[in-house]
């Protein structure tokens, strides 16, 4: 075909496996990350299906209690450390941050590649731990159990420790890139909102991750050298571990959701063909969420035995998170108002984000209320809540972003019909799986048990069927996305009619992103000033 000769882009130029393995191109590193996190998502998903399968009936069907403990721990650890934390920043962020600000690459391309290999190295520890008696502590590694259990805590925590460096490197790189690499004329208030979200995320990554690293290192020290830091038998304080752990892990929740919110801002503006409402409010609410995220970690510990004073302060501050989150949701809805809305697949994901994230966020308010939390703590209500935020929020945004930028990344368009079918299956499957868990939790079904009372069986079965619908949706998605790579029709440069810079270059972009350095002629959402047509459909 003449097509192959005609166009040089980052995918085919330069050639050879070495040019991929040692690449310094942020786009290729983004693709490497995308492939890796997809593998991690698949692995974590298999664990999830196994968990739901065991819970289909009361009693032991598929695995015993010990195996079950290991499987749910692995599901959590893999999904959080290997998939969701690097998902949007390291894969989509790496690919699109420089494009969005008109740069040729990130500020430190070598650091970028290093962060990828550190990610791979850390993941290998995590996978190794699976084969050497997988951990059964839950992904939170709470002491004193984690210092006493015979399962392989050290490889997994060491893996998470190493993965932390990858996250810090990405964060540092993004901060410097956003400060220093914007094209002339792109002031802070002309940045696409995804960039603001990545900036807020990067701050959390740099500031919070070291605390997790040290905490896990202390845990390893306690296990190996019996230094009493957290284990009361050795004179330590187990609640201190929870403080240190959640000082990272609560902000980490916002490492997961903030970039998702950034994607939603892009999607809603593009597919409403309207200037985003409340640009500054959305931008600063990202920073606001990042800051407040550091002040609320104690709401994970209301029944841990922390002081009543601390619990009150943390409960009060937790409600503050509702303010910037609410600002965002209302601004998105106002942007939709009187917009020229196109219901393309990415937009469908954005709209489902609005529903699911709002449910997830509001149930967070329930759990942030001290007295209510004592009742709901460690029940399926909590499980349902964080899946609505993490999966209904972040994963939906990730899928929206993936479908939005897929034509740009690979230059190919996926099948519209099947993408809508998959989206519907994911949305329905998700709600069937997790809404039932809100009810289970409020009825008192505790989390992290392989067995349960007969009265919970109908809802558990319902939830398990949901996991199959969800799985079917993801399988269809994998098929049509892979199919599009080989047989998909060629995507135009700007299929959705977007105004940000990534749409001003080829699909896929050339090696150095832009053939001609773009000029700042309009803001990222100036749909009121610039006429741009959606060329697809």
């Amino acid at each position, binding site marked *: 075909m003449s097509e192959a000769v005609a166009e040089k882009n980052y995918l085919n130029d330069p050639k050879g496996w070495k040019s991929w393995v040692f690449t310094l191109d942020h786009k290729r590193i983004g693709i490497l990350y995308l492939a890796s996190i997809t593998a991690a998502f698949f692995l974590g998903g298999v664990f999830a299906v196994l968990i739901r399968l065991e819970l289909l009936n009361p009693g032991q069907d598929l695995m015993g209690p010990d195996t079950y403990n290991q499987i749910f721990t692995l599901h959590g650890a893999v999904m959080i450390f290997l998939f969701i934390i690097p998902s949007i920043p390291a894969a989509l962020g790496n690919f699109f941050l420089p494009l969005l600000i008109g740069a040729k690459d990130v500020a430190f391309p070598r650091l970028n590649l290093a962060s990828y290999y550190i990610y791979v190295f850390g993941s290998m520890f995590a996978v190794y731990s699976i084969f050497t008696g997988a951990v059964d502590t839950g992904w939170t590694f709470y002491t004193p159990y984690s210092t006493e259990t015979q399962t392989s805590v050290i490889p997994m925590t060491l893996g998470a420790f190493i993965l932390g460096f990858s996250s810090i490197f990405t964060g540092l790189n993004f901060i410097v890139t956003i400060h220093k690499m914007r094209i002339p004329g792109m002031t802070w208030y002309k940045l696409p909102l995804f960039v603001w979200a990545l900036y807020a995320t990067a701050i959390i990554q740099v500031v919070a991750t070291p605390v997790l690293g040290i905490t896990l290192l202390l845990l390893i020290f306690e296990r190996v050298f019996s230094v009493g830091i957290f284990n009361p038998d050795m004179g330590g304080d187990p*609640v201190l571990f929870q403080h240190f752990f959640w000082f990272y892990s609560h902000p980490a929740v916002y490492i997961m959701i903030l970039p998702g919110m950034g994607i939603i801002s892009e999607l809603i503006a593009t597919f409403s063909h309207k200037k985003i409402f409340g640009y500054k409010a959305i931008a600063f609410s990202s920073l606001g969420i990042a800051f407040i995220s550091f*002040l609320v970690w104690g709401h994970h510990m209301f029944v841990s035995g922390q002081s009543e004073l601390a619990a009150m302060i943390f409960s009060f501050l937790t409600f503050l998170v509702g303010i910037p989150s609410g600002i965002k949701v209302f601004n998105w809805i106002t942007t939709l108002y009187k917009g020229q809305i196109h219901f393309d697949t990415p937009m469908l994901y954005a709209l489902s984000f609005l529903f699911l994230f709002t449910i997830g966020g509001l149930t967070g308010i329930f759990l942030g209320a001290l007295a209510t939390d004592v009742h709901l703590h460690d029940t399926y209500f909590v499980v349902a809540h964080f899946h609505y935020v993490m999966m209904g929020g972040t994963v939906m945004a990730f899928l929206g972003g993936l479908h939005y930028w897929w034509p740009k990344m690979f230059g190919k368009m996926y099948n519209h019909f099947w993408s809508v079918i998959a989206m519907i299956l994911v949305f329905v499957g998700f709600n069937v799986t997790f809404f039932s868990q809100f009810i289970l939790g409020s009825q008192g079904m505790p989390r992290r048990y392989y067995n349960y009372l007969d009265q919970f069986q109908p809802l558990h079965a319902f939830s398990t069927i949901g996991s199959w619908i969800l799985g079917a949706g993801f399988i269809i998605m994998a098929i049509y996305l892979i199919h599009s790579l080989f047989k998909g029709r060629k995507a135009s440069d700007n299929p959705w009619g977007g105004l940000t810079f990534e749409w001003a270059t080829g699909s896929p972009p050339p090696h150095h992103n832009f053939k001609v350095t773009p000029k700042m002629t309009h803001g990222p959402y100036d749909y009121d000033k610039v006429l741009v047509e959606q060329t697809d459909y």
Partner: protein
Amino acid sequence: MKAKASDHSAHILPLRIYLGVGFALFILTGITVMISFVDLGGWNVTVALAVASIKAALVVLFFMHLLYDNKIYLTIFLTAIGFLAILIIFTMFDTMERGRLYPEKAKPIKPGAAIYEREDSLSSRSVDTTKTDH
């Protein structure tokens, strides 16, 4: 080369400032040593930490030139300290205030330990230890 020099604003401080800061550091060290002989109760730690913070600030501001460098470095440095302060202070809201609302009857888990164990659970614990002894 010139560009690089102006980038870092080749700022040479007069020698007497270095000597002055050095002298101040010695004085502050003396204060730390002297205060350790006076019993101020819980305030001993506070004073020692305050003196140490002033010394660190002097070193960072003058010897490491943070005062004369681009202010973004100072901002980043102070931000990091701020977040560390949040970690420590909020954790102390817990550790310093435990058992205020519902006073717990508790004993140290071993002589001199900072961790206390409720007395009602102590009896069951001693049963456990005898079991493991056998």
